[in-house]
């Protein structure tokens, strides 16, 4: 009889919310945007967050993105207690570990695709030449080689969103947060973007958390989390 094999230590999830709440206002006027949410996302997962507006999914995403902190409960990002960090420390955490993709792309106007992608590297203090190389590689990864010098105005919506994705992954983040990345795109472009995100998730083992309204986009994710009234209603 061999002794029972010791349980391998369960790896710490990259995202772990414990009884996280967010309250606006005080006393009678207090509004709960988030009521005691428990959520874990493991490394390499692709999670879709769904729910009607006002369900708390945006607040939850802001907390996960370290743009906001929970008023109660705990949020650990890769083992770091985010609630204890200062504003600047959270900025540094975002700079090094998170990538953001927005519904409205949020690219700098009249600025070339390459320079847009370089932006996070500037804040990381990467030298000029290396920045160029990394940005060109990232643009290549989203299939935009040859479009480096085009400004957002000269690109289609789908291309713009791919530039934004390149900007999010250029700094090699641990988690990519996408807030309705296909909200401004037609169906065909939406599927292109989703294929790209899946590809990044699979090939680079990039953790992706995506907010979406559209169930056919959410279908790409490995797991779907439904929010309602500030809490998680269901997971599938």
């Amino acid at each position, binding site marked *: 009889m061999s002794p029972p094999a010791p349980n391998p230590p369960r790896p710490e999830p990259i995202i772990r919310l414990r009884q996280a709440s967010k309250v606006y206002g005080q006393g009678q006027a207090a509004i709960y945007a988030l009521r005691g949410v428990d959520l874990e996302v493991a490394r390499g997962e692709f999670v879709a967050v769904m729910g009607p507006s006002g369900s708390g999914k945006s607040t939850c995403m*802001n907390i996960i*993105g370290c*743009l*906001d902190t929970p008023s109660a409960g705990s949020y650990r990002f890769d083992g770091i207690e985010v609630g204890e960090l200062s*504003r*600047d420390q959270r*900025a*540094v955490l*975002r*700079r*090094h570990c*998170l*990538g*953001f993709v*927005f519904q*409205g792309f*949020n690219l*700098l*106007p*009249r*600025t070339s695709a390459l320079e847009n992608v370089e*932006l*996070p590297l*500037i*804040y*990381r*203090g990467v030298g000029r030449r290396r920045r160029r190389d990394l940005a060109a590689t990232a643009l290549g990864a989203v299939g935009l080689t040859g479009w480096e010098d085009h400004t957002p105005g000269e690109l289609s919506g789908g291309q713009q969103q791919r530039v934004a994705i390149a*900007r*999010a992954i250029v*700094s090699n983040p641990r988690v990519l947060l996408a807030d309705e990345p296909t909200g401004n795109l037609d169906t065909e472009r939406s599927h292109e973007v989703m294929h790209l995100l899946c590809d990044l998730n699979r090939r680079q083992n990039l953790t992706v958390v995506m907010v979406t309204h559209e169930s056919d986009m959410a279908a790409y994710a490995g797991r779907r989390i439904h929010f309602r009234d500030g809490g998680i209603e269901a997971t599938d």
Partner: protein
Amino acid sequence: MFWETFMLAIRAIRRNLLRSALTVLGIVIGVAAVITMVTLGSGATAKVTQDIAKLGSNMLQVRPGQGFRGPGGARSSAPMLEAADAEALAREISGLDAVAPSASQALQVIRGSANRSTSVTGTTDGFTRVRDWDLAAGRNFSANELRAGKAVGIIGHTVWKDLFGGQNPVGETIRLNRISFKVVGVLGAKGQSSFGTDQDDLVLVPLRTFQRRIAGNTDVQVIYVSARDGISTETVRADMERLMRERRRIGPEKEDDFHVRDMQEIVSTMTATTRVLTALLGAVAAVSLLVGGIGIMNIMLVSVTERTREIGTRMAIGAMERDVMRQFLVEAVVLAGLGGVCGILLGLTAAAAGARWMGVPFVFSPGIMMLAVAFSAAVGIIFGYFPARQAARLDPIAALRHE
């Protein structure tokens, strides 16, 4: 990192070229105004100093009465000076270069049918030396002419042009007070004094001739004295005052009944006046620089509002408060600095043109340019600070949602 921020600022400025240009214009005008005013003011100061130097900056004058200080009546009650005073000064005061006692009167000077009202001054050969005045033609008075009171004259440039029309006057005759004078010399042109009078409108005659044949007395109205180079006019002045008190027998308790005027004193008074005026003009111009600064603040505030989403995006991808702050501050300083440089160029051009037009020298002072650049950069920092802080304090979530 600073270079990146600088390039970022340049890009942001170029993104809205017309607006940036109009913003910069405020600073351009402010800096240009300051530079023009101060440069022209310095030019005017230099001109006054030069003019007085033409009179002879190491010159002193002795006059009877209390000069500027006493009431008007004091002059008439004080006894006049005499030729012997000038001789005593020349003999007993060390460090003097030349002494010229003189007396003047306005008279008609006639040559043939032409005549002109001019100032006739009786003096000695020391006059041209004291006043640092060259003869354009002819010669100075000889010792014999001075001693004997001969009827000879040296005419000023204006009198020469008016009566002789450019012909050689030496050896010709002019009439003063119905007496014929032989012209022996012509003075070089000095032009207008800084008080606006024509310095060349005069005729010099020997003092003794003037006293005997024109004034009919032995009065000397003023004694011009020049100190030798390197001799302090202060010391000379003190010595002269002592000697004059002795000669005029003024008791130790009594006030002087004569006055020694030092050209240095006049120089410093006049330059002080122009300096005050320059400072005043500069201050008025500085106000426009301030207005330019407010323009920068205004535009930066608009820019922060307009670029709220950009700021939110930058924060989301990892910009700290101080990164955003620096970005907007550098942008304001670059705008102001650009305005400063353009303002200097415009100001120098305007000052050069103005100096030519006003007939004052163009005084190039690097100090004021450095001050203007520093001031415009300071304007950028001061007026850029508030909008930059506003940008840095934005909540990234609200900024991202901003439409």
